[in-house]
């Protein structure tokens, strides 16, 4: 603890444009001065400490249950759900038991689409908590009430569509995946560097649309690598199923470890 030397402040609370209180001398419409002391107390804590601790607890739980957890993130409309429906179908033929937790502000449309593959799919609607733009470690823990982890090898978390906030919130995952689609700008990785820096894998989706767009895939991949030099980038089309092999092979390897 540090004791700051006493200094004069205004007895009435005065909030000016500056960031500090200043001594005020006379002429101030009956302002009374008095001595006050400020005591500075060291805190030294991460603001997201509570979430980080819960994420670590989730991670231990997943390790105990031998469940591999993927956190899939992207902007809205990049095709996360379609990509995951195709992914889950292929993993099922390999005998990998999947479950999904999907976050949206409203509706359970995505969970319904994912549940149609036959795997457990839990929807989290963040509007109950003020329309949060991301999932939290606590939200994931709560969603696990509805999933029997004994029967799961791979838990896929489809985060709320947003390239900013989910990058900041650890949920206890083992790997992070970002989906970028060719209908977005090539410079998205430079606009949202934290997301691309934090992820372990990038999927470049909707490649079936490339003939109709001016999108320069080489530039997009180069931009991803500017932010994160050794991240694998796999172009694929969730609509046609093209290009899924390296992605599926990567998941298979990760789940077996």
């Amino acid at each position, binding site marked *: 603890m540090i004791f700051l030397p*006493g200094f004069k402040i205004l007895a009435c*609370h005065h909030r000016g444009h500056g960031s500090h209180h200043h001594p005020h001398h006379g002429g101030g419409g009956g302002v009374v001065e008095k001595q006050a002391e*400020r005591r500075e107390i060291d805190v030294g*804590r991460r*603001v*997201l400490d509570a979430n980080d601790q819960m994420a670590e607890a989730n991670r231990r739980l997943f390790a105990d249950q031998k469940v591999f957890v993927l956190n899939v993130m992207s902007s809205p409309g990049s095709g996360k759900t379609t990509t995951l429906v195709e992914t889950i179908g292929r993993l099922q033929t390999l005998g990998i038991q999947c479950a999904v937790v999907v976050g949206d502000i409203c509706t359970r449309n995505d969970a319904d689409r994912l549940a149609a593959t036959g795997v457990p799919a839990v929807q989290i609607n963040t509007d109950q908590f003020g329309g*949060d733009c991301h999932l939290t470690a606590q939200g994931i823990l709560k969603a696990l009430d509805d999933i029997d982890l004994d029967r799961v090898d791979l838990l896929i978390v489809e985060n709320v569509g947003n390239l900013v906030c989910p990058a900041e919130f650890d949920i206890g995952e083992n790997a992070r995946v970002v989906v970028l689609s060719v209908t977005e700008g090539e410079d998205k990785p430079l606009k949202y*560097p934290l997301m691309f820096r934090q992820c372990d894998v990038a999927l470049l989706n909707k490649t079936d649309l490339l003939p109709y767009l001016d999108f320069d895939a080489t530039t997009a991949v180069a931009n991803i690598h500017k932010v994160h030099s*050794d991240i694998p980038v796999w172009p694929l089309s969730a609509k046609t199923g093209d290009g899924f092999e390296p992605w599926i092979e990567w998941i298979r390897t990760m789940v077996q470890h």
Partner: protein
Amino acid sequence: MHEMGIALEVIKIAIASIPLDMKGARVAQVNLKVGKLSAVVPDSLRFCFDVAGKDTALAGAELIIEEIPVRIRCRDCQTEWRVETPAFRCRECNSGSVEIVSGRELDIRSIEIEENGI
């Protein structure tokens, strides 16, 4: 976009940091470190802090945000530099094996409590 959630956490931690022997004291100032690479907009956070702090021990408190620049170190040649654009590749040897030294902070450094000259 999630500044309200961050502000609520700041307030929760600040209140929990008031020493037991100062129960009921008013927190006058909260000193925060925010890295330039954290997904937080300082102006928005200040606004949320003011709104969410009403009716708490932090009512009217000032939130002082120290913005921390993004610094990167190359693991291969040990060069360390400050980045202004999101290019995470060594400017000396072009290696992509770099680590973020600072810029990810979102920490409460300290709180300041008024002791009203009793």
